């Protein structure tokens, strides 16, 4: 099986977020970045399918130069090669503009499966995989926890709301967006990190891909959310705060 995994580099989960001077995005200069979590699960699913059925796992990512570190991490975990689409305007492209870049890079590979995480932790659009499928003219399924290869395609386990699931059969080639939690994630081994250095990373410039970057929806401004409730912050040492909270649970909330 030839499997492509589209991955995104996103700010680390615990990163302190500051709005930048333009008011349109966050200050990135002092941020640490990491592999988007559901993309890590997509990569894991691809690596396990390759271990079972053979084939090749190729990661593709778009973004500024810093994404190289995330691509190397994916190679160290076991991807065979990578396609790196360098573009500095990722933040001003809309979902169609980003999916267009990925689809243009993916199309010539003629892969059997294209996997990606169900949504990014920064923009949280949850659309990229579905639009890539649309642009490539392929069937898709979303929120997938498990993939089983069959004769003519794949059978997948899809998560529904409130603890329900559903099985879907798709012919391949197909696009799947992967939900977190379906597998246990692997760590890169020392050997993997060493090997990653010799693996092929094909560099593409966004400008080479002839994809329209003019957005049809614009992110105009980012702001800090307003509090919905006035929170009473209980302060003091841990012991003092705990004692004060118990008082409140007893006399204000009345559950003790």
């Amino acid at each position, binding site marked *: 099986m030839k499997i492509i995994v589209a991955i995104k580099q996103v*700010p680390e*989960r615990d990163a302190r977020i500051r709005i930048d001077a333009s008011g349109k995005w*966050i200050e990135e200069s002092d941020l640490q970045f990491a592999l988007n979590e559901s993309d890590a699960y997509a990569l894991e699913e691809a690596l396990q399918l390759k271990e079972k059925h053979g084939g090749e796992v190729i990661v593709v990512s778009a973004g500024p130069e810093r994404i190289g570190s995330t691509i190397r991490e994916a190679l160290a975990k076991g991807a065979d090669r990578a396609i790196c689409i360098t573009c500095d305007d990722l933040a001003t492209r*809309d*979902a*169609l503009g980003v*999916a267009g870049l990925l689809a243009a890079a993916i199309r010539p590979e003629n892969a059997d499966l294209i996997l990606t995480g169900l949504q990014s*932790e920064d923009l*949280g659009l*949850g*659309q990229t995989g*579905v*639009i890539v*499928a*649309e*642009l490539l003219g392929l*069937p898709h*399924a*979303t*929120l997938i926890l498990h993939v089983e290869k069959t004769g003519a395609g794949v059978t997948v386990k899809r998560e*529904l*709301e*409130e*603890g*329900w*699931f*559903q099985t*879907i*059969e*798709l012919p391949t080639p197909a696009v799947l967006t992967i*939900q*977190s*939690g379906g597998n*246990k994630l692997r760590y890169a081994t020392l050997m993997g990190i060493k090997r990653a250095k010799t693996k092929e990373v094909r560099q593409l410039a966004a400008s080479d891909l002839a994809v329209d970057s003019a957005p*049809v*929806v*614009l*992110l*105009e*401004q*980012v702001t*800090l*959310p*307003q509090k*919905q*409730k006035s*929170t*009473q*912050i*209980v302060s003091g040492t*841990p*012991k003092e*705060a*705990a*004692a004060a*909270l*118990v008082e409140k649970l007893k006399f204000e*909330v009345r*559950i*003790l």
Partner: protein
Amino acid sequence: MSGVLVIVDQRAGRISRTSWEAVAAARHLGAQLGLPVSAAIVGADTGALATEMASRPIANVVRIEHPLLAPYSADGFTLALQQLIENERPTQVVFAHTYQVRDYAPALAARMGQVLIGDVIAIAEGPVFTRQLLQGRLNGTYRHTGSGPCFISVQAGAFRAETPDEPASQAPIKNFTPSIDPAQIRTRLGEPFRASSQTVDLGSAQLIVSVGRGIKDAENIPIVQELATALGAELAASRPICDNGWLPMERQVGSSGQTVSPKLYLAIGISGAIQHLVGMKGSQCVVAINKDPDAPIFEIADYGIVGDLFEVVPALTAAVKAAKG
């Protein structure tokens, strides 16, 4: 025709609550723009739902009916709605932001050269649409600049479903039969199933101690288990804890787990991403313990302790035990 079209989902033969919220959002948008609002119901048998919808204050109801539209498939819904939208030419198309809509609406918008503005929590003059970024740490405001219809989906709970007044005059109902060929539906969907019998009913729990990523390791779970035991509370968790197998899936609270509304929800090391909040924001009292003062959980907490859970939680367990004697 310029106007707002709202796409209504059914669940177990009824119009879903989230769809009523989408109708409210569409009416809000229609009032703001001075445009009529129509509702479309997609399925194989939409008669009863269309009649119910027609009693609400909307301009008209469209039944998009075809035998191939049940069960749901992304291919079928995308084809059917594309044909309707090209026919009716609405200027805005509104959905509820459900798993099903997330499965096909981005493809539908892309097929028409547009981009869905998903998971909208507010609509201001413009129209300007607000959605959350970075797991709820920021809000972003979006504007549609394309020349075709503007597609939006609204977050569950963001708009209040209207209770019907006296039945307004029945809105006209019309039928639309899309042309769909069986070969165009490329996926085969099985019946929904539950993974295991649910033995933990968090929905009826009065007190819940819930643990998130901040707990760092499976071996730290006993710290929160002890607090839950001292309080006589059920132990629950956010998704990553169950993904890692540190607690069973049936203890998960959130959009993919259980929805709870206890008297006390004590969130420990939970940042408060929207997927978690939708499962617990009906709690009467929310207490959050988190080391990050900017964590979104504090936006909905009644009481908060900003601090290291590994120090605060054992102290709280001791204080609860002492209070209970």
